[in-house]
């Protein structure tokens, strides 16, 4: 797969979820990504192309960034089989695809959605809290940095996933193991907790004034933690705080 094709497929991979549906989730997007390669592999063999397209129309669901690993892998294996290599069968390509989709989704969800994205967002929010949003330039720069930092990992995974999925095929699992993703998740989370603590302390000391405000804030935090332990959603706390504040104001005792 020459570099030009790789960019083309990379570009297509950005649209993996454009036709998201409840029946087969990302199947149309997946087809969209592998089709140019399939057409090249089975040039002048319309029956084989037809079978290949049908084969890859099935249920497909994984993390959108990690999907490129499977796209690269599929293309490489299809090339291999079409080239006459008997060590892999067409059925096995399907099996690899569906076996790997689940765990890759778990890794992608755990790292990107549950850790990296909230962490990067937290950094921007921290800047807002710590600098009081006073300086426009600081805000713009931190937003830019957030997008840059977040997406360098994002695009890196998409691009390298495609490249290495193609190059290493199923051996890519060993490569993924070297990243020790779960450990990374733990470390980023610890960093996140530290930042949260800094935010709380700064807000408590510098942005609230008077014992009443601080007292209420501490109470709100305590209530929130209590509700959280009881597994009640934070939206409840959100609306609860608002209602209580309004009622309290009605009672005539303003700060």
């Amino acid at each position, binding site marked *: 797969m020459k570099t030009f094709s790789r960019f083309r497929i990379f570009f297509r991979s950005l649209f993996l979820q454009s036709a998201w549906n409840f029946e087969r989730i990302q199947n149309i997007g997946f087809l969209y990504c592998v089709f140019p390669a399939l057409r090249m592999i089975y040039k002048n063999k319309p029956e084989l192309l037809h079978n290949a397209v049908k084969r890859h129309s099935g249920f497909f669901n994984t993390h959108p960034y990690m999907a490129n690993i499977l796209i690269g892998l599929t293309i490489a294996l299809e090339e291999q089989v079409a080239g006459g290599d008997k060590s892999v069968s067409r059925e096995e390509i399907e099996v690899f695809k569906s076996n790997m989709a689940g765990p890759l989704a778990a890794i992608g969800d755990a790292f990107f959605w549950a850790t990296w994205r909230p962490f990067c967002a937290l950094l921007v929010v921290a800047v807002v809290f710590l600098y009081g949003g006073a300086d426009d330039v600081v805000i713009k720069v931190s937003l830019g940095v957030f997008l840059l930092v977040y997406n360098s990992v994002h695009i890196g995974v998409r691009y390298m996933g495609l490249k290495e999925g193609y190059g290493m095929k199923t051996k890519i699992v060993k490569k993924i193991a070297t990243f020790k993703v779960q450990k990374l998740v733990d470390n980023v989370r610890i960093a996140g907790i530290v930042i949260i603590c800094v935010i709380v302390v700064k807000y408590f000391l510098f942005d*609230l004034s008077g014992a009443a405000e601080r007292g209420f804030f501490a109470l709100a935090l305590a209530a929130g933690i209590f509700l959280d332990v009881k597994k009640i959603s934070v*939206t409840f706390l959100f609306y609860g705080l*608002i209602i209580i504040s309004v009622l309290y104001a*009605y009672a005539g005792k303003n700060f």
Partner: protein
Amino acid sequence: MKYNNVLFFAFLSSLLGLDVTAVAQTMVSRPIVAASIAGYLLGDLKTGVLIGAVIELVWIRVIPVGAVPPDTTVSSLLATFWCIGGAAQGGGLTPGVMENSRIMLSILMAIPFGMVFKKLDIVHRQFNTSLVHLVDREVEKQKYGIISKAVFLGATLFWLKAFVFYGLLFYPGALAVNFLEPALSGAVKSGLDTAFKLIPAAGIVAAFSMFSKRKHEDVQPF
């Protein structure tokens, strides 16, 4: 730079909305980014950032796993436009003098619409199943052009439903906020003001819960 033009904003917002699911997912659609962009273009970056930060934090635990998540992007963009765009139209926007109660009011009004949008989104995704069958049929006939067309159509639908949604809601919502804000009684106003100062607590709790290991997480708040 001030753009109060509803059509322009509906266009921009629906483009940003594509980033939520349909295209790339670079996080420009995150509340903190989208609301800031909208706020900046409307002439008040700071308010946009505040709205974005509040929504981002409080709903930081929402992830697209399992179910279709409530759309915090929609809530942020609606709240930002209603709050700032409305203020500009109300005659004279002085940056930095946005009342906290107005901000809270806008957010409160916008959140239910995020839920409504999610329902629309589900209907759209259910519709897409027919795209799957269409692709199946064309593939049977060995006509593969349908694949690209389906992807393009899918993306267009994601964009279009957002465009119509925003287009219909931006102006009335801004009028509503302009109408409601002065109508707020002193107590409610002061209560909302206080709430604005306390809301970071909710966000902090959410963030803390998110980052502590294996704690409960509501993938679908509400």
